[in-house]
């Protein structure tokens, strides 16, 4: 049995390609044939068909069964479900906490630097104070 995580990995792998994401964006507007999908891209129809196969295997799209005109349709189910929602929120927060870690590291570095240059700063402050006195 495929676990939720495996299904998600497959979804991510399918979405890792910009052409496939563009195809999905196009299908969000409605059904389309392979010819229609190939139009905006500088790639051959067989290449588009390959991309469609990956998307189909990931459950992101489905294709009609009519022999000639097999319209492609977005299958939002693969992008739904409680587990996927939780996973998405979790990843969004993970990304935020990555940034938080970066920010804290910067903060530590800045503090270390200012502790080092404190005597120098103190001299500068005194100098500035003397200047202010003179000018008044």
């Amino acid at each position, binding site marked *: 049995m495929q676990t939720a995580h495996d299904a998600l990995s497959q*979804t*991510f792998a399918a*979405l*890792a390609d910009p052409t496939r*994401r563009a195809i*999905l*964006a196009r299908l*969000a507007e409605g059904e389309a044939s392979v010819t229609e999908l190939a139009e905006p891209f500088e790639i051959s129809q067989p290449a588009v068909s390959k991309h469609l196969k990956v998307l189909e295997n990931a459950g992101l799209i489905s294709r009609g069964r009519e022999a000639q005109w097999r319209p492609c349709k*977005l299958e*939002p189910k693969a*992008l*739904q*479900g*409680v*587990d996927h*929602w*939780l*996973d*998405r*929120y*979790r*990843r*969004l*927060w*993970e*990304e*935020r*906490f*990555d*940034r*938080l*870690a*970066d*920010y*804290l*590291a910067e*903060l*530590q570095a800045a503090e270390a630097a200012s502790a080092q240059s404190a005597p120098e700063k103190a001299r500068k402050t005194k100098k500035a104070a003397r200047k202010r006195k003179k000018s008044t």
Partner: protein
Amino acid sequence: MSPQVSHGTFVIDRVFHACPAHVFSAWASADAKAKWFNGPDGWELLERKLDFRPGGEERAVGRFPSGAVSKFHSRFYDIVPDTRIIYAYDMYVSDTKISVSLSTVDFRNENGGTRMIYTEQMAILDPQGSLASREEGTVWLFGNLEAALAAQTQK
């Protein structure tokens, strides 16, 4: 017809090389929070407000590249300096409410660093239904997936 609600919880456990006071202040100060509390890549901030006290509110409004607008609106319920923050928030995408959550952030001193445990208990509104069939819902999902992919490739 009333929408179907589902519930879920997730926990993120992180250790930072900074003291609890520093990590806590990254949540408490508006300037510090703005450095890391943002939407996915390409999300443009439109409005931000932080009133960090029990009963105080926080707002973060932004726009995805698609044009869909997300709204985060939260209220703080419990604040113990350097120790704990509890708040509740709702999320809107283009005027559709998609979730209501209770978040607990727990800070613990650990060998001079800080162990931060973030627990979010969510009520997900209509996860299988109308939202996903709506354009903004799909756009929101793609936005999040792209962020997730970006995070994955960084690792």
